[in-house]
């Protein structure tokens, strides 16, 4: 491996971007934007599907929700990304004009929505049944008691697994390298090859991943503290996965 050579980051990769460190920053930007956009997609879809799975007296909606979760949980993320990137635009001509970024965001968002739906379901079911009945008793409609009674508590319960899920989404965005999204793994591979300074490039990317993971962790801890309901003990519902 030889000696370190950190000067390599000041060299010119010979493209639009003047230096390697600026390229790295832009790659980090891609990683962050893929992750954040996917997180939004995942939260919206995951919340919908999670709620659907707990609705009373609608077996077909529940079945649809369960099928959704099983479908997106049992196919590897890499395969899902390839499907969105190569197959979906050909099957649905409407989507053929979409940029790769959007397709990858859909892939990662749908993949993660299944996990969030599962967490939200268990969060809702962890609430005492009485909460639901109390909402019904004061005359709330189903959307109303979800909006004002169940969901505010359920979301607080699932903050710990949501924290690990947001960290997962950040790590999982690395799989986008396979369809040429210029995120950090893609940078590490290309810049490493161009400069033959693979170790330095990997180091820089690894450090950025670790720092970003810590920042997300802190942000979520802050959110958890801000929204805490006094006197309500949050029971963990378990996370897992990568």
């Amino acid at each position, binding site marked *: 491996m030889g000696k370190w050579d950190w000067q390599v980051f000041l060299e010119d990769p010979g493209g639009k971007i003047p230096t390697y460190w600026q390229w790295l920053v832009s790659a980090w930007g891609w990683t962050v934007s893929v992750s954040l956009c996917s997180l939004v997609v995942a939260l919206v879809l995951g919340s919908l599907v999670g709620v659907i799975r707990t609705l009373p007296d609608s077996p077909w909606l529940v079945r649809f929700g369960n099928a959704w979760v099983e479908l997106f949980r049992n196919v590897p993320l*890499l*395969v899902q990304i390839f499907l969105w990137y190569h*197959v979906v635009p*050909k099957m649905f001509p409407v989507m053929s004009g979409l940029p790769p970024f959007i397709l990858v965001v859909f892939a990662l968002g749908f993949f993660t929505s299944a996990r969030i739906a599962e967490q939200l379901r268990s969060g809702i079911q962890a609430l005492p049944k009485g909460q639901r009945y109390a909402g019904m008793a004061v005359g709330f409609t189903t959307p109303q008691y979800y909006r004002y009674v169940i969901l505010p508590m359920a979301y607080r319960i699932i903050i710990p697994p949501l924290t690990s899920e947001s960290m997962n989404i950040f790590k999982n965005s*690395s799989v986008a390298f396979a369809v040429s999204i210029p995120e950090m793994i893609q940078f*590490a591979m290309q810049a490493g090859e161009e400069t033959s300074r693979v170790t330095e490039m990997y180091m820089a990317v690894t450090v950025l991943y670790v720092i970003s*993971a810590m920042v997300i962790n802190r942000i979520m801890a802050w959110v958890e503290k801000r929204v805490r309901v006094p006197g309500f003990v949050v029971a963990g519902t378990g996370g*897992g*996965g990568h």
Partner: protein
Amino acid sequence: MNLDLTFFNWAVVSSFLLKGLYFSVFLTVVATLGGIFFGTLLALMRLSGKKWLDMPAAIYVNGMRSIPLVMVILWFFLLVPNIIGRPIGPEYSAVITFVAFEAAYFSEIMRAGIQSIPRGQVFAGQAVGMTYGQNMKLVILPQAFRNMLPVLLTQTIILFQDTSLVYAIGAYDLFKGFDTAGKNFGRPEEAYLLAAVVYFVLCYSLSWLVKRLHKKIAIIR
């Protein structure tokens, strides 16, 4: 789009897919067994109450868990040949990577499993004169394994899906088999769809089995 699955016959399965499937399954089994072994050691280090054992294990586990698997795969592919002094194939590199990486995840599961055993069990073991090793081997770990079996198996299913990421270093696994077949026959879309179906069927049946096992264990307890 017209799907044309005619290229998909037994010759394709036997010449492209079986080799990949074999490697994916091999990688999953070795990484699970190795990961549980080293993961249990890491968990014991973290629960030892000795700082010089706890700290390195904690750094290792938390470090591994904050880096994407793809990055770890690339690192090992770069470093392992440097350490052992000769080049190795992507398949070997993948096996070492997955054992090292999964050990971090399995150690968290085992730690939770060991902590789920009531303290009284430890004291009971000590009271009948067992050493630390005997107590762990005969009293604590068997119960911890049993309690955590569904979680360990679920992690194994996730691990099986993650083996597809060896794509990054060009190792020949099940997905690579579909990828290669699709490119050879000029039918990549069909190949990716078939890959998704095969992974789904495998993982869904496995998770269904785990669910059944979970129920069975729950009743006995």
